[in-house]
């Protein structure tokens, strides 16, 4: 067989459109996931028994089920249960928020708890309220330790968006699938799709490396 570059050239606009959606879902999902993850992680680390139980249940529900099932639930089951219409994009972004949020919660919890308790005590001993100690003292140290595992989660979430093919979101994998169904050029199309994913994850890796370098690890 011969690699037909014209197939790639013809498919490029549609694939780039798909990649755009992939980036959009990932970005929106991770912004939300970070917010949810920080709240749930801090509830786990410092909340009372009730807050801790709520966050724990959320994390376990998400970690114990596949992301495909989660997005199917949001897209097909929620409308039945709660009578709300969900479009595929909203379902996709929500799925990343909910899914990444749970994993990020564990990262946040672990890194806050990994900070030597003497720092917390030194902050409290100055007469600060606990939230200020977490915000000004423990948080900045914990944040530096979060960067490597967070980077890992960002890459996982980016690739997870390909699973949203099951609800018909026109992200990169879905675009590849549709073009392939029309021209049967599997080698050219899936090579191009793979390379676009590599470019996106590679860019993420570079950004994370640079961030890690700029911050002194503590």
């Amino acid at each position: 067989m011969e690699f037909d570059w014209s197939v790639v050239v013809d498919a490029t606009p549609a694939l780039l459109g798909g990649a755009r959606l992939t980036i959009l879902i990932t970005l929106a999902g991770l912004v939300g996931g970070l917010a949810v993850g920080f709240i749930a992680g801090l509830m786990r680390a410092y909340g009372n028994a009730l807050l801790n139980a709520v966050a724990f249940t959320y994390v376990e529900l998400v970690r114990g089920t596949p992301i495909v099932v989660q997005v199917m639930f949001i897209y097909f089951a929620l409308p039945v249960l709660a009578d709300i219409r969900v479009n595929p994009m909203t379902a996709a972004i929500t799925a990343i928020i909910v899914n990444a949020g749970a994993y990020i919660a564990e990262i946040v919890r672990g890194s806050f708890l990994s900070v030597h308790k003497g720092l917390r005590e030194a902050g409290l001993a100055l007469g600060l309220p606990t939230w200020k100690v977490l915000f000004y003292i423990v948080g900045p140290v914990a944040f530096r330790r979060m960067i490597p595992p967070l980077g890992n989660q960002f890459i996982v979430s980016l690739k997870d968006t390909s699973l949203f093919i099951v609800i018909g979101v026109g992200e990169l994998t879905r675009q590849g699938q549709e073009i392939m169904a029309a021209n049967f050029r599997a080698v050219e199309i899936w090579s191009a799709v793979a390379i676009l994913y590599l470019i996106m994850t590679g860019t993420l890796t570079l950004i994370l490396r640079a961030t890690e370098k700029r911050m002194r690890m503590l």
Partner: protein
Amino acid sequence: MSLVEFRKVTKTFDTVVVLKEVDLAIDAGEVVVLIGPSGSGKSTLLRCINALEQINGGDLVVDGISVKAGSSKIRLIRQEAGMVFQQFNLFPQMTALENVAFGPRRVRGASRREATEQAEALLAKVGLADRGHHYPAELSGGQQQRVAIARALAVKPKLMLFDEPTSALDPELRHEVLRVMQALAEEGMTMIVVTHEMAFARKVGTRLIFMEDGKIAVDGEPADLLAKAENPRLREFLQHVN
């Protein structure tokens, strides 16, 4: 009224009773040196004063405020009672200067400029004027502990609590920390110091307390006690630390 007053204070961890109905009054200006075997409750006694540990029985009043009065009152107590830890516990993401300026800025609400000026003056006082822009990891243990003392002083406390401030240091670095503490005592600061530095107790201390098994076993003049201790266990203890 005394600056610190323990009234039948009991502290337990789970089922272990660590402080047993301790009565103790400390007046402004005293330099109390607290000694005793490991596990006798010295750190716990100190940490009850600034409510890092919660007492289980009795009452403990610091500068007129009870440690049982709730979290906003506890913060006031902590602002009056600075603490220096065995492991320094400097904030690693901040320079020495930022560590010292942190209290004035975030606790006392000073402006950045005011806080920095105060911090510079305090660093000069502990002999580290030229180290302000170094991070804790770039300082020796003795320098870190002096920064930690300056950080506690920056909140302008009435009382300083020291928990084995020189125990984590190499012998040749201890004297620089002890000198700073002595200067502080000579200025009239009220201090409670857990330490095994008997020379410091003799020279600087105004009162020596020997703790044993959660109780105050001996309480007296450092010079007297170090010259002739009546209590046989204190005598034995002194032989081991000297």
